[in-house]
């Protein structure tokens, strides 16, 4: 018996999953008792239930490897990827609740309509390269300078950070705040050494960066472990300060 198997917590042979069923925000929880085995993740159990007990249950997934960002849900009240939540990390002596993300319009069962996010992304100023460095139309950049934007490129657009952010979740400020996912997207463009566009006025106004109160829930739920608050949002807040709030920095051009 290999070590990894030996240290694995012994799982019961079945577990109860309390899954949200219904459409367009309506519905309620239904309990399903389903067989489980070691190594399984929540998405496996949901698939088992779909195959055996509830053929009409809607669930979105794609890669089962934590890379497509489709299977976002709330498991025991926490925003997580169903395919990356192993059953041996959950307490299976009580029902495991699985429900759709709460910050987006509900479609059916575990599926929500995340298209608001795509609309938000369109509003962000596109990548705008500066004049090429070389005659052949190419640029020269140092790895050290692209380390920062590259962290943000790990994003799989699961929108779990958007789901947990209280500005959207509790205060429904979807029209005034773009949310952590798009603050890191803006940071990725703003910090890119080749990009020449200026998104600072938008950050302050239409993006609503001031609504973020740096409580870091986005960072806690990110499956890619991107330091959303520390490495993207706070640095952007500081750039906004340079431009709009710091009288001395303004004398020197306000970070332009």
């Amino acid at each position, binding site marked *: 018996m290999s070590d990894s198997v030996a240290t694995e917590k012994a799982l019961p042979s079945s577990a109860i999953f309390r899954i949200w069923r219904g459409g367009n925000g309506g519905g309620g929880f239904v309990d399903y008792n389903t067989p489980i085995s070691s190594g399984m993740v929540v998405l496996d159990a949901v698939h088992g239930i779909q195959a055996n007990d509830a053929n009409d249950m809607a669930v979105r997934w794609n890669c089962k490897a934590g890379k497509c960002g489709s299977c976002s849900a709330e498991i025991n009240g*926490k925003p997580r990827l169903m395919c990356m939540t192993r059953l041996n990390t959950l307490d299976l002596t009580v029902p495991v609740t699985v429900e759709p993300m709460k910050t987006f319009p509900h479609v059916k069962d575990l599926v929500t309509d995340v298209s608001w996010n795509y609309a938000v992304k369109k509003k962000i100023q596109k990548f705008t390269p500066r004049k090429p460095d070389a005659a052949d139309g190419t640029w020269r950049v140092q790895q050290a300078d692209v380390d920062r934007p590259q962290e943000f490129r790990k994003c799989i657009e699961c929108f779990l950070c958007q789901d947990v952010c209280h500005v959207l979740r509790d205060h429904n400020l979807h029209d005034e705040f773009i949310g952590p996912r798009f603050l890191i997207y803006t940071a990725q463009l703003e910090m890119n050494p080749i990009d020449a566009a200026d998104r600072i006025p938008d950050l302050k106004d239409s993006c609503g960066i001031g609504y973020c109160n740096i409580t870091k829930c986005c960072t806690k739920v990110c499956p890619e472990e991107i330091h959303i608050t520390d490495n993207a949002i706070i640095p952007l807040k500081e750039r906004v300060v340079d431009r709009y709030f710091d009288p001395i920095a303004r004398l020197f051009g306000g970070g332009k």
Partner: protein
Amino acid sequence: MSTIDVPLKNGGFGSTRRTDNWWIEPLVVFFCYLAFIVYSNWAVFQAKDYHYVGNGADYLSPMYSPMLTEEGPVAASGLTTAPGPAPSFWPRFIPFSPAMLILVFPLAFRFSCYYYRGAYYKAWWLDPVSCAVGEPRKKYLGEKYFPLIVQNLHRYALYFAIIFIALLAYDGWKSLWFTAPGADLDSPRHFGVGLGSLILILNPILLSLYTFGCHSLRHLVGGRKDVMSDNSTRKKCYDCVSGLNKKHMMWAWISMFYVGFVDLYVRMCSSGAWHDLRIL
């Protein structure tokens, strides 16, 4: 309000489907802040026992540094000096403590620190009390509007905090110089080390580990630039600050409680409750 139709009915304060003990962390943070606030208020209103001069030492409490008032004579116990008179501009009906004029600076610094902000918005303001847990209030202004928009001036508090590190480092240095026991305060001093000296010297070090990991400093030394590789000094500074920044929360807590402890040590020695151990 949003034009997109979200299903969540704001369930009210504390509503969540989370099954873990999410309330422990905000509760611990709440009581730790409370403990520090209560202690520092008490220490401020003591307005005495902040300068230990027993056995020829010169230990000044960080909550009363720099020495703002003219120092009174050495008390009969020989352990501390009498507090000086209030400055003439001070209104008579408010009890005076030099610590009031001093503590506004570190207070403004910590109050506007990005880490503390996130922590007390949760633990004190419940906005949100914990992730994916319902909030008590519907209205939300964040830091976009007055009053919290003022937090954007954090870097100015940082400038003062750096000055204070220098002042406290100077106090640490002074704590290494002793007069002959019982001699006049301005008689010649010789090098020595007491337990208090070590305690006083560690203080600016811990404060530096906190202060030099500041997010605003990280921005100012390099983060504001898209290209840092063209200036190796800048890049090194940025990497240093970034390294400390990763542990900013830890240093914030350690340095805060340590300042309280240094004050307590000086206070206990000055009142005669503890005896400073002379090492050298």
